[in-house]
């Protein structure tokens, strides 16, 4: 993975928030994921196969998801089911949009959503994983990209 790859994911993430909410997300400087867990309330994981292999996940807080759900559905009382579903959908959209750069050989899986602050999300050990910090409004989340 190189800097150009990271830019594709940063652009896709920024575009998601801007398009859905009208407010830009700010991405921090990406860093190599170490042993420390990067897990917030809900995490949406997408497996990647085809020409590139690995996985991508976004991990975020319930409050941020409730805010986005309120924008999408005009509903300020998003259920747990909705915020879980939305986590998977955000992961799917960010991953699917980068096919503009990688083409259709960049195959994405349906999302798997993990609820709760698990110890960590297991990634392929032989591949470097990068963490992209995201701030939207006052909310923090992280996109973790682990690609061969």
């Amino acid at each position: 993975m190189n800097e150009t790859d990271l830019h594709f994911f940063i652009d896709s993430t920024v575009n998601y928030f801007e398009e859905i909410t009208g407010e830009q997300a700010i991405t921090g400087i990406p860093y190599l994921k170490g042993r420390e867990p990067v897990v917030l309330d809900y995490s949406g994981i997408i497996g990647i196969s085809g020409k590139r292999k690995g996985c991508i996940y976004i991990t975020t807080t319930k409050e941020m998801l409730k805010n986005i759900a309120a924008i999408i559905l005009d509903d300020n009382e998003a259920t747990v089911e909705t915020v879980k579903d939305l986590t998977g959908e955000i992961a799917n959209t960010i991953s699917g949009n980068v096919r503009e750069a990688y083409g259709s050989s960049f195959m994405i899986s349906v999302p798997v959503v993990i609820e709760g602050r698990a110890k960590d999300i297991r990634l392929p050990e032989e591949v470097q994983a990068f963490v992209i910090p995201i701030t939207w409004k006052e909310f923090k989340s992280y996109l973790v990209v682990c690609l061969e």
Partner: protein
Amino acid sequence: MQDEIKSEANMQGKVKILIVDDSMTIRQAIEKNLKEFQVEVVGTAGDGKTALELFKNEDPDVVTLDITMPELDGITVLEEMMKIKRDVKVMVITALKDKATGLRAIQLGAKSYLVKPFTSEKLKTAFSRMMGLN
């Protein structure tokens, strides 16, 4: 009773629509945004297999169709739908932003291809255009 309601809706000239997406949030957003059009939602599905069953049973005029889904992907579902009802209007709504997938969907018979994330305005504009309303 349900059938009576559906029949009444169709007599009022409503378009029968099937909404297919593995995200419940997206299904709800599409339904909410298309409310202002003369549509009757005859079914919603979260996977390709259920979508095809509903398609055969409910005979919709319009389908909004995701691509990345469990059971059967949207491209396969689109191919099957076209074999059953060639004049159905299918709007693909997907996160897959590559040109090849868009072209494939259009070649198979989709009338519209909308890339996620979408705003209410973009969805309504694309739907209007597909239905020939503007």
